[in-house]
């Protein structure tokens, strides 16, 4: 067990670093570009230099590199000031791409993957619906066969980056008369298709990064289908497994480092807050959680680099990070006292704004991509093997499942 690079890894790290030094975009190069424009600019440059989606095969725009090499690149990239990437590419590259690699035809792979890697095309995830979130398999958006096409009707909701997306991954119901998991079919869809309407939803933190998407008589050619008709649930699970791994436990914002720095700056009873034993005790337990996540991730990466699949234990990251971040943000506001509640969402770059902005946005992380409760169920049932809840909805035809309305 060690953390040192092998000779080959050290050489790779040096190469990555040299490239980053020469290529991280300067402010002047991106003048006039908005957030998404900057994200695309950086992605394109990485792709041109052969540093995008490193683990993907070269013909799909990747580098054919190992998982560890991807990690090394991420570590080096994190040392630079680079454009904010948000969720612009994580859905396409982290969720759509692995699903297309597993289930897509060679033509689809050739058509979509390189433009995902280069950042030219943003993808979104049309999964959740008003009455299907945690219970995704309760989705009702209908797909009906019409010659070589499918006609789609329904409504999706909470669709992140739909307003920028060229394409989407979409799960539909093709047969309501069989049990819910058996009647679904999975597609890729061109977001410019007639009949797709995207309406922004304002979130409680103020912005509108997610949307409602209405689908009215949208035509999708059968060659955009992933997996067999009725096999949509299995395909969706591939996407969801990658989602859980890709949302992960990033500890940006209110974290040990930022809250400790805050406690060094503030005073309690006219002494540095960091000398206060209650502050120390709180910080220490959060440090333990953060370190636990970091080293768990390293163990997972080691397993991945040996070719193992990401398992259900990757649910831990988001579960721990969401609650921890929310509580740390809340505690940081308390340390700042009355002044801690100041927040102008348009001036988020101000000192200490990170705590209030995290306080307002982290409730979303605890829900997105599988709620805390669903993550705990996954750990209980799939990791620990505890008996599942009795199910009333699994074996009867979907159309007979109680819905409360």
């Amino acid at each position, binding site marked *: 067990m060690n953390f040192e690079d092998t000779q080959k890894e050290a050489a790779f790290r040096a190469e990555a670093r040299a490239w980053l030094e020469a290529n991280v975009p300067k402010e002047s190069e991106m003048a006039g570009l908005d957030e998404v424009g900057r994200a695309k600019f950086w992605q394109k440059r990485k792709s041109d230099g052969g540093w995008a989606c490193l683990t993907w095969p070269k013909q799909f725009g990747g580098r054919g590199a190992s998982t560890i090499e991807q990690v090394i690149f991420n570590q080096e990239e994190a040392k630079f000031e680079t454009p904010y990437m948000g969720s612009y590419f994580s859905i396409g590259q982290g969720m759509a791409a692995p699903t297309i690699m597993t289930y897509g035809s060679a033509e689809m792979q050739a058509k979509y993957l390189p433009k995902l890697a280069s950042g030219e095309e943003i993808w979104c995830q049309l999964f959740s619906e008003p009455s299907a*979130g*945690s*219970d995704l398999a309760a989705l009702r958006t209908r797909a009906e066969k019409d010659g070589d096409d499918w006609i789609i009707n329904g409504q999706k909701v909470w669709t992140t980056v739909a307003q920028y997306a060229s394409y989407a991954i979409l799960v539909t119901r093709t047969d309501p008369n069989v049990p819910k998991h058996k009647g679904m079919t999975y597609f890729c869809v061109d977001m410019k298709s007639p009949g797709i309407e995207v309406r922004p939803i304002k979130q*409680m933190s103020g912005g509108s990064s997610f949307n409602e998407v209405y689908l009215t008589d949208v035509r999708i050619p059968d060659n955009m289908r992933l997996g067999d008709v009725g096999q949509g649930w299995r395909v969706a699970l591939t996407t969801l497994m990658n989602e859980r791994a890709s949302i992960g436990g990033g500890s940006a914002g209110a974290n040990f480092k930022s809250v400790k720095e805050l406690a060094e700056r503030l005073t309690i009873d006219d002494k540095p807050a960091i000398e206060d034993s209650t502050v120390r005790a709180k910080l220490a337990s959060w440090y333990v959680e953060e370190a636990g996540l970091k080293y768990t991730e390293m163990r997972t990466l080691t397993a991945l680099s040996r070719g193992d699949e990401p398992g259900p234990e990757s649910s831990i990251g988001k579960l721990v990070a969401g609650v921890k971040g929310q509580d740390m943000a809340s505690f940081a506001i308390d340390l700042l006292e009355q002044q*801690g509640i100041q927040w102008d969402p348009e001036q988020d770059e101000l000192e200490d704004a990170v705590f209030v902005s995290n306080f307002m946005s982290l409730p979303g992380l605890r*829900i997105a991509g599988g709620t805390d*409760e669903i993550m705990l169920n996954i750990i209980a049932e799939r990791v620990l093997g505890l008996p599942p809840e009795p199910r009333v909805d699994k074996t009867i035809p979907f159309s007979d499942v109680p819905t409360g309305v």
Partner: protein
Amino acid sequence: MNFEFNDEQIFVRDVARSFLAANCPPEVVRRVLEGNEHYAADLWQQIVAQGWAATAIPEKYGGLGMSYLELVLVAEELGRVCAPVPFASSVYLATEAILLAGSEAQKEHWLPKFAEGEVIGTLAYAEKAGRTTAASLETKVENGKITGRKTTVVDAEIAQLIVVAAKSDKGDGASLYLVSLDQDGVSYESVKTIDPSMNHANIIFNGASAELLGADGEGWGLLEKILDRAAVLYAWEQLGGSETCLAMAKDHAMERYAFGRPIGSFQAIKHKLARMYVKNTLARSNAYYGAWALNTNAPELPLAAATARVGSSQAYYYSSKESIQTHGGMGFTWEVDCQFYYRRAKVLAVTIGSERVWSDKLITASDLVG
């Protein structure tokens, strides 16, 4: 022993509850949250007309002369609906400060105006990020003129009168002053906060006239006493909010189906809501004790106040965040009302000092009482 409100007090609460249900529906909170008003002035006028601001002011000063047991129940109801009015600042802080520390002349001058709602008051001591202490105060008064800057003052741009803590060379290092806000030498820096349904601003004093409130050099001790009294009232308002979070979460858990059953049938949700109930119940019982101590001016008040305050702050944070969680994606939207409570919970929790500060006071106070 009789550790319960009497029928008349319950009646006051019921009247307040139905009045607010009719006059402060969520649309009123949303209107202030989204618009440019500092507060719902129309609602405030109605509240004042109901006599609520006069509740605990003695009759000889134009009040209703009721007890704090009525006032805490009104506070709970205001919290229940997240009322966007300066009730806490004017009643729990400014009115209480004058009742506790004012001279006879000051009481006769100001209290009838507070009772009538003719004057809205507030209070400020914080000057910096982190905990302000008597020793760290920079605001000072010389020859009756005040200079200094107070940060994130609640209802600053609504109030006409403010109680200010300023530095003193004597006693505990601080004195309290009454400063009229409608005068030269007072200016504001508007401040946006996580709860735009309330008003906050920094206030800059530059030579405005200030009148001593209470003895020179006893200001910090007085402030602590005022805050202890206010803490009980805040605790009731926080509790009211926390109860609404539980009610909203419960309604949603009964209506929303997943996996063919109401989500309220999942133990994860049941336990979450049951935990809210347990926290609210403990907070309520501690708030009862606080109300008793406030009403009887018991020596235990500092401990009772801190206990009620910490309990309600914790309960409200938990209920407001887990109500969002129970609502799933819609809980995180602007459109759904869960956000009002999450914002308000945090703002109320720091307005008179955070949970951390009150935990600290609690342990100190626990030495004073057997």
